[in-house]
Structure formats: C-alpha cells, structure tokens
C-alpha cells in the first residue's frame, strides 16, 4: 500500500515536471522572441500554445539514427543516463513542508552527485558518437563540470554552516518564515557564486560551450535525433528546474513566503522557481557565449577564491554572533 502511494506520487510529480519541461521550452521561445522584438511560435494553437506538444509528437515519431561508427550501447545509454539522473534528483526536493518524495538527510549531496552524473552522460554521448564535434563538446563539458562543481559545492558550504544540515527541508526551516531572514542576504557572495556555477552546470548561455551551436554544430548532441535528442533536452530543462529549486531552497527560503497560501503550500516555491527560470531565459536572450579560456579563468581565478572567502566570512560571522 505504501509503495503504491509512493508510485502514485512519483507518477504525479513526473507528469507535472514533464509538462513544465514542455512549457518551459515554449516560454523560452516566447520570451526570447519578444526580447528580440519578434513573436516566437504563433501558429500551433492560440499564440502557439500547442507548440511544445507538436514538438514532442514530432520528435517521438522521428527516425532514430545511430551512426555506423558509434559505440552503440554507450550511444543509447547516454541520454538515458542524463535524463534518469536529472529525474532522480527531483526526488529529494521539498516542494512544501512534507512534500518531498524522499526527505533524506544528505539531500544536497545527493543532488550534487546526480548533477555530476548527468555530465557523465554528456561526456559519454560525446565520446560514443565518434564524431569530432560531439567529442569536443564532451571534452568541454568534462572540463566545465570539473571547474564549476567545486565553486558550486563551496558556495553551498556557507548555507550548510548556517543551517547546520544537509537536509533540504531543514535548510528551509532554518531560514525562518519571514521574508528577510532568507539566506540570500547573509550569503550574497555565496549566492552569486552559486548562480554563475548553476548556469555553467546546466550548460546554459553564457556557458553553453558543450553544445555551442556556432562552433560545434550542436556539440555533444550533434549525432542524436528523434527521441534521444528530446531526452537530452528534457534532461537539460529538468536540470534547470532542479538547479532553480536548489537555489530557491538554499537561498530564497523555499516554500516560505510573505504570507501563507491556503490549500496550495508549494505556491511560493513554484513562484521562486519560475523566477529563476525566467532569469535563465533572460540571460540567454542577452549574453553571448564565454570563450573557453575565459570560462576557465572565471571558474578557477574568480569563483573558487570567492567561494573560499565566503566560507571563511561565514565562519567568522558565526563565531562572532555566538
């Protein structure tokens, strides 16, 4: 009985998240379109509202091409690894008090592990396709993950120190319920580092070097088509949402808002996640891609020292406050 309930919850969460993935792509196209003074999708449905569904159907029925020289098992496994790791990290997110599928004590660590594993899928995809563009994309992804995993983990150490826990629910509760007791203000350096590392971790503009369309055709997904291609896209957008949720939980006070919404406790959480997603899209519409050496310089010379500084400052303030 317990298992059935959990399976039902998983199914509901999965359905909601996949629907969100579909419509995040729609809003991305719409928002970028309007920022570029054009309209975005307009034809399928009212103002193109059915566009993501049409895209989904199209990619589902498209021919799945596997290159002759590709390493078939790895080629087929890579998108699955990407998608499954991203979906797995959804399990520990607390959408509201008690609204987490698995409220484990190492939630933050689990999410780090999963997002690193997702890049493993990207690297495998690049390598298994046996094409120079995908290989370069995979290499870049590897370098990027190694460079940005460190500042990302370090930036959240400050949060862990303040909250005294890795459990995401406890982190939210440690921030209190009032609007201005969220960790954004004491952890502003940490938030900045986390935000930049988050963009890099999800392969978003301006750090989309692994799939850099202008240089690498489409990076690690060059050789993919049909449903496998769509799986990489779903993984990317779920990754965006997971990272936005982590940002919400660790810095913006999770489901706590200025006032409680009856019957729908995750309201503020979802609103904050939408805010993050808008920021992602807004940045994509504005910024050009970083150069590879700039990316490395930013990661190693700026973000890691900043995050270390943040850890030291947080520790000092904690001692002084006591």
């Amino acid at each position, binding site marked *: 009985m317990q298992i059935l309930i959990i399976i039902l919850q998983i199914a509901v969460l999965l359905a909601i998240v996949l629907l969100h993935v579909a419509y995040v792509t729609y809003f991305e196209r719409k928002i970028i379109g309007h*920022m*570029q*003074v054009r*309209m975005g999708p307009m034809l399928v449905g009212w103002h193109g509202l059915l566009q993501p569904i049409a895209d989904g159907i199209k990619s589902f029925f498209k021919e799945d091409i596997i290159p002759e020289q590709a390493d078939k098992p790895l080629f087929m496994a890579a998108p699955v690894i990407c998608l499954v790791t991203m979906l797995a990290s959804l399990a520990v997110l607390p959408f509201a008090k008690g609204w987490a599928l698995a409220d484990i004590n190492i939630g933050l660590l689990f999410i780090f592990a999963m997002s690193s594993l997702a890049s493993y899928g990207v690297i495998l995809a690049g390598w298994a396709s046996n094409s120079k563009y995908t290989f370069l994309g995979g290499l870049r992804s590897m370098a990027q993950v190694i460079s940005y995993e460190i500042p990302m983990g370090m930036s959240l150490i400050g949060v862990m120190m303040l909250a005294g826990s890795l459990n995401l629910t406890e982190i939210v509760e440690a921030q209190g319920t009032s609007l201005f007791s969220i960790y954004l203000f004491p952890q502003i350096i940490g938030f900045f580092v986390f935000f930049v590392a988050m963009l890099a971790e999800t392969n978003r503009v301006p750090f989309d070097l692994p799939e850099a369309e202008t240089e690498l055709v489409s990076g690690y997904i060059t050789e993919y088509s049909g449903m496998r291609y769509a799986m990489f896209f779903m993984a990317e957008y779920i990754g965006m949402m997971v990272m936005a949720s982590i940002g919400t939980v660790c810095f913006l006070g999770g489901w706590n808002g200025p006032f409680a919404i009856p019957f729908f406790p995750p309201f503020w959480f979802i609103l904050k996640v939408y805010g993050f997603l808008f920021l992602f899209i*807004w940045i994509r519409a*504005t*910024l050009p891609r970083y150069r590879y050496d700039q990316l490395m310089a930013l990661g190693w010379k700026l973000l890691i020292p900043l995050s270390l500084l943040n850890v030291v400052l947080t520790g000092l303030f904690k001692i002084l406050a006591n």
Partner: protein
Amino acid sequence: MKVQYKPKRNLLETIFQVEILQGMALTLRKLFSPPITRQYPLEKPPMYPGFRGQHALVRDAVTNDSKCIGCMRCATVCPSRCIHIQYHDDENGKRYVDEYSIEALRCVFCAYCVEVCPVGAITMTEVFEYSDYDRDAIYFNKGALLENWDKFIEGTGYDESYVNPFWRPRGVNASTLPAAQRKSVPADWTIEGQFVGTKVRQEQETEDMAPMEESNV
C-alpha cells in the same frame, strides 16, 4: 593612435558587472515593446508600386486576346533570354502571335520587357506566391500568362492602368538602354530568326553523332 576597445571601468562597475546589467535592462525593455515582425502567411506584406512579381500578358477587352504585336523587342532586350515568341505574317503583312512563353525560372525579374513594350502588353503583377512542385507550372505559355492577368485583376481590383505607369510614353527606345542590353543575339540562339531560350544545336538535329564528334575534334 591607440584604440581603446574596452571602456575603463572603476572598481564598483567591475564588481557589479554594470555592462551585463545594462544589457539585461535593454532586453527586459524590449520584452514589452511591440514586435516588429509580420505573421507572413496570415498577414501579407504591403505592396509598393513597381513591384516585379509574376509575369502576365494584359488581356485586351476588345479582342479578348493579348495586346502583343510580335515586335520582338522584349525578347531582344531580355538579358536571360527567357521570352520565346512564335509568330507568322499573313499575306497582307499582318502579324499574328502564335505563342508567347516566359520561362519564369530563368527570368531575372529586371522588367526590361515591360519597359520596352510599345503597347503595354506585358507586365509584372504583384503576385509573388506562385511556387510549385512542378517546373512546367512555372513555364508560362500564352494562355497561362493571360490567365495570370485575369487572376491578378480579379484578386486586386486593378485595371489596365496598372501596366507600366513609370515610363511614358510606353516603349522605351531600346537604343537608349545601356550597351549591354542592346547586344545582338548570337545566331545559335535563334531559330528562323526568332529568339529561343536555349542554344540551338542545329547540327545535332540534322546530323548524326559521328560527324558531330569529328567536327568537335
């Protein structure tokens, strides 16, 4: 001279990445500005006078036929040689145009034919959506060209005054055109003195392959 590519920033501007924030502000402002694009298949672009679209032969209301008199000036001036005219003269010297065809796929849409036509017989309409899967559908013969005119008149409500309103009197003298447009047509582009679109291989039609190869050597 030293070119300064990067404007100098003070420390505060560096920390807060002012340029990035300026860019973000710009894109956010543009998010709320009305889009400048046109929803093309639903919303047609405005047409300006002198638009050079699909070719048409003006249908004469009296004879219910084209106004073409077979003077061959359009075929002479055509830079891409895509106008083919077949005519015959009767014993009184009256000229009848049997066939008038335009290979629209080879046309460069210069509208010189419209400029030089002395009677305003040929024109270019405002129709531009006539792509087809079939090449033959874009090879307009006389009937198709007259039909193009009928459809255009019916669709837009123009009358004959649409034809060539820019050059009056009609029929620019070909000798006033630049020299490149007055070049004489080489003989291998003509059959019986009438221009055709492709080089004529008269030898090939009359002789068999063996002497052809010899003559090439």
